[in-house]
């Protein structure tokens, strides 16, 4: 049985391993980093700690959200570093039985493929499990 923290980006439902998630919270004001690679959305002050924020939208080939849109942050640990992933909405923590975990579908865009570790068929929809390290690498 694996547990995933789920969230939505655009219309898709995504999940990351619950073990890797430190917290989920409303997006803070970000300091932009000029010249940073695409996907780095800025730096946030998380209780005195400077944390890199990665926007999953460009990573998933999605158009950026408009200015002032309310977003959420999923704070994850990546190789000793704290990184926050910018998502649209936070969902539940779901438990998935091993039998429901499958390889990502072949129809997935090649650009997105390395990001997706597996696909889980939930009762009503498909959950794509993100490879946290890949996703956070922006």
């Amino acid at each position, binding site marked *: 049985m694996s547990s995933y923290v789920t969230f939505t980006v655009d219309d898709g439902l995504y999940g990351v391993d619950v073990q890797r998630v430190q917290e989920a919270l409303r997006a803070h004001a970000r300091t932009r980093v000029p010249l*940073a690679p695409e996907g780095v959305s800025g730096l946030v*002050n998380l209780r005195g700690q400077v944390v890199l924020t990665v926007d999953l939208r460009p990573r998933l080939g999605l158009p950026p959200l408009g200015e002032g849109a309310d977003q959420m942050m999923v704070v994850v640990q990546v190789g000793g570093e704290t990184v926050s992933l910018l998502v649209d909405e936070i969902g539940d923590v779901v438990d998935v039985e091993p039998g429901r975990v499958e390889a990502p579908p072949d129809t997935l865009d090649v650009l997105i493929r390395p990001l997706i570790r597996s696909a889980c068929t939930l009762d009503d929809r498909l959950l794509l499990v993100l490879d946290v390290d890949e996703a956070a690498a*922006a």
Partner: protein
Amino acid sequence: MEDIDEIVREFLVESHENLDQLDRDLVALEEHPGSRELLSSVFRTIHTIKGTSGFLAFNRLEQLTHVGENLLVELRDGRRSMDQPTTDVLLRMVDTVRDLLSAIESTGGEGDVDVETTRAAIVAVQEGGAAPAAPAPVVEVEVEVEPVPADDQPVAEAAPVGAADDRPAAEAAPVGLVPAPRAAEPAAPAAPAPAAPAPGAPAAPAAPRASTAPAAALEDTGTLRGAADSSIRVDVELLDSLMRQVGELVLARNRISRLASSAQDVDLARSAQQLNLIASELQEGVMRTRMQPIEHVWSKMPRVVRDLAALCGREVRLEMVGGDTELDRGLLEAVKDPLTHLVRNAVDHGIESPADRVAAGKPPVGVLELRASHAGGQVSVEVRDDGRGVDPEVVAAKAVAKGLRTADQVAAMSSNELLQLLFLPGFSTADKVTNVSGRGVGMDVVRTRIESIGGTVDVESTVGTGTVWRLRIPLTLAIMPSLSVECSGDVYALPQVHVVELVALDTQRSDAGVEYVHAAPVYRLRGELLPLVSLAGVLGVEASTPESESVIAVVQADQQRFGLLVDRVLTTEEIVVTPLAARLKAIGVYSGATVLGDGRVALILDVQAIARRALVRDPELAARVAAENLAAAKVQTEQVLVAGIGGGRRVAMPLASVARLEHVRTDQVELVGGREVVQYRGTILPLARLDRVLGTYARETDELLLVVYTRGGRSVGLVVEEIVDIVEDEVGRHSSIDDAGLTGSTVLGDRVTELLDVRSAVLAADRDFYSGDVFDVLDDTADLVGATR
């Protein structure tokens, strides 16, 4: 098993420390061969290593230290005196011990380190000199300090050195009163004193202690070691994480203070105040735990200098001042190599051979001085030698020969600028590559290293008298003063250490705005062209402020000085540096990030990287700027003070002759013989109202603004309505007008400005101002108004 590893580790750590001390002691011992404290200290160190290595079954280490100890016993017992071969062989032993220790550290065993040759060398020296070569000098023949025969002494007792060192001092006090007949001492000599010392014995150590200065200096090293006994070892990582946490506490404190000052709650304010105080003290305390005296790095220098001086045939006396100056241990580690390089360089290239020195009328022994001190939140470390100095001409020739600069460029440089060329990569003044320096590890590496920790390095040299290398190092890396600047709505932190000055670009008031040299923007700052770099341009963000309203932060990076154009300068604050994620560091413009007092995150700008990025793009810009500067110097400019005199008229007067600006109240003005004067600093200051002199009318106010001219003992005050600006005035652009009290006009900041005939204005106030030096009158006129007529 783990326990044993732990013991070995402890042993290694302790021994490495002891060996550093040993190096220092041995070199010092060579200079003061009679010092009992040093000998005892050396002896104890070796003995401790010997004892522990026997216990841990490191046999070769034990054998080696054993023969070394034998040699030391002879020295200690006065059966032989300290000479160069002895020191050499002992230092060699230290090196071998070090090799053994590192072998143990890396492999757990003694490896195949060659002990035998060193052992043989020690034995050879011992046997060769066993018969006392010369009757030992009086000072050396002193009585045994250690009452217990050393061989029987357990390791545990050998360890607390401080206590052992204190003992003779304590004894010295009462015994010092008893005159100790020096002549009696040789009688005691070879007595190994295995039993309790003879009653008169303690008097002997008392003698050198009480009398000579070197003894006092040596005592210091003794107490230093003693101090180590009252301390504990703490894992550096623990300290680092403490430091980080305190950094965060400081940030939280900053936010609370901000909240408390905006709320009207007295209790909250009081608590915030207290938190403020505690956090500051805690921060200081934690910072202190990471501080170590620079002595830790210097302790290796006597050995370095000694070995190198012997190798290069120099005679060098090393003086170290301010060894107790503390700085962050991380920084200490970072300055170690650059400092060693500078010291080696000074011995090798700075100080001349004894023959050359004598020929130059200097004492044969060169002096190399290391000097450390705290200055303005920084540590300044100087490496000063009294050698031949660096000849700027030679440097210039070299730079041209190596193609680093053109002949025209060096011709335009001052001798100080020429010396700075020493820091260029690929520059080495050594005529031939020696074993010591000139191996490509040049001053550029020194500079890079020092600048990478936010420090600066500088050189000053006078041919024939010596060279000073000056390092300026921040006290700590974690917290640094910085300037917050704004660019396109974002706040960035600019490390203060790079900021030279701030200049407000205001094209409304002076005509010295941004100019273009082949499309590259430059700014004329006090007659010098300063290349400008727009921060928004570097960061690739849209500029939100027109260039004309920007602020120029004049920054210095490497050798380059340039102006960084920013939108606004906000404030200076102490920031806690947080490292950046690797992929952001790779951008190469930011050196870190920080949380500002208001909770915002600000990126810290890496000024050096920006300089490289923005200025290297146009490598010829620097050359052009230099050439322009040369040309600019030919255009005669002078600074003039522009003042409004009423009626919308402005006059300019040469700033050079203005002594002061003063405000006086109108009711202080008195009349003397029909002329206005004020009492000013105990004298009478005659006034001339420029509006009346030049035929206009100023507003009546209760306060007068005076431009005070002073010459010799006399002063006059010229009354003006307002001070407008101080600007550069190009003499060549003057047009002449012929009007009473004026010498011409010019355009300053888009306004026609009259040039005041200061002489006639001054005479209007004080008819006798120029009398008494009739011959100078013509010159003065030229002085005061610039070469306009």
